[in-house]
């Protein structure tokens, strides 16, 4: 009896469509969120994450509608984030059918947001999403979709987020995002060692061995990928069989 390592496809959405960029830029259309969600739900995904990458105030209604449409397709856990600045934003996302809320920029700007969400909805519903980039100073947390350094150190911010009530950390390596050069195992292990909550590794997934490495030396509890699943380059089922064959505990669908 072991807690399974999770495989989590991620849908980055912009105005109701799934998009994907390289190193947070150059967006390409990848399809309809509802169709992809249904495919992943039936294909053995352990969870689904939906991120509104525009996170603009004007598109709130469109995003909530997307959350609702995606939620209808799922019987697995569902995290939604992007543009959540206040308690009410989080409540709206949960009411639309998400199980967890991911916060990023707004939490850096006002860390109390994490405490407020955790007090109201419980830590298990609050995911601290952090975009991290290597700089001369070390691993820095970037905000606004990776556009701007927050000046915060990744490990320190992870610890603070957890102390404030975040129940999971979604850790994205900006350097690796969309590059297909593998997860940043060093970064993932460093953050996992700092916190008592599960860490979801994100950014750079390409091969099955990348996943094996991030669950091994990377110490990740879950691994997220987008492009390789969207393009059907890899199926989640085949990935899980590969991992199971190498001793990684995964939930195999029947």
């Amino acid at each position, binding site marked *: 009896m072991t807690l399974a390592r999770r495989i989590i496809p991620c849908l980055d959405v912009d105005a109701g469509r799934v998009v994907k960029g390289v190193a947070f830029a150059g967006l390409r259309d990848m399809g309809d969120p509802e169709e992809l969600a249904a495919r992943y739900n039936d294909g053995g995904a352990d969870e689904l994450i939906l991120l509104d990458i525009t996170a603009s105030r004007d598109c709130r209604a469109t995003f909530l509608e997307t959350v609702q449409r995606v939620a209808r397709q799922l019987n697995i856990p569902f995290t939604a984030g992007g543009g959540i600045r206040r308690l009410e934003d989080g409540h709206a996302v949960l009411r639309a059918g998400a*199980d967890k809320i991911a916060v990023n920029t707004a939490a850096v700007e006002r860390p109390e947001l994490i405490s407020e969400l955790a007090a109201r909805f419980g830590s298990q519903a609050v995911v601290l999403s952090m975009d991290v980039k290597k700089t001369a100073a070390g691993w820095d947390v970037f905000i606004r979709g990776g556009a701007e350094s927050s000046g915060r150190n990744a490990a320190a911010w992870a610890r603070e987020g957890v102390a404030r009530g975040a129940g999971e950390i979604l850790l994205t390596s900006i350097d690796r995002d969309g590059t297909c050069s593998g997860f940043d195992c060093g970064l993932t292990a460093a953050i996992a060692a700092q916190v008592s*909550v*599960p860490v979801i590794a994100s950014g750079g997934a390409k091969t099955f061995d990348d996943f094996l490495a991030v669950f091994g030396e990377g110490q990740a509890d879950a691994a997220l990928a987008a492009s390789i699943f969207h393009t059907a380059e890899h199926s989640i089922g085949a990935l899980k069989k590969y991992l199971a064959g190498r001793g990684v505990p995964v939930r195999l*669908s029947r």
Partner: protein
Amino acid sequence: MKLSIIDYGAGNLPSVERALRKLGAETECVARPEQIAAARALILPGVGHFSAFVAGLRERNLTVALRQALTSGAPILGICLGLQAMFASSAEAPGEQGLDLIHENVQALSSNVKSPHIGWNQLRRLRNSILLRDIPEDAYFYFAHSYAAAASEPHIAAACDHGFPFAAVLEQDNLMAVQFHPEKSGEAGACVLRNFLEWAQ
């Protein structure tokens, strides 16, 4: 048969409702004492803080009605916090009283394991279970919680191990409850809900 889903203001109702409807059940969300008194079978979903749950019931004057319905034998399925709510109290909210149908306390997960316990885990069967009927022994279920009840007593049908063995499936007369989220546990979870529906008929 119609299932009455208790809405105390913080639970994640839509996904529970959707999962039950997919199985062909008729559902309604209830938030008034007389609705609970009239219900044939109840679902107590739960997401959030123990104190928010207690306060949510109290503000809606549901505590007494719910206790009465349950002591008079109405079938109920508690989910996640809905399981913990059946206990006397929780370390998450010292001083707050639960429904106290099971006279024990809910405790925090141990500090030597990751908390919250989030993800898919397997169960250890302790006795014959109504809710787990026809479900393979090695099936996975989705958990998301930081507190749990120790799996020490005869009313626990299955345990899960995370730090200490905790109550994953509780079955005692008309009281049924699961610490995991059946509505989020794929096929295995749907099977748990189906078993509850058939039993509650």
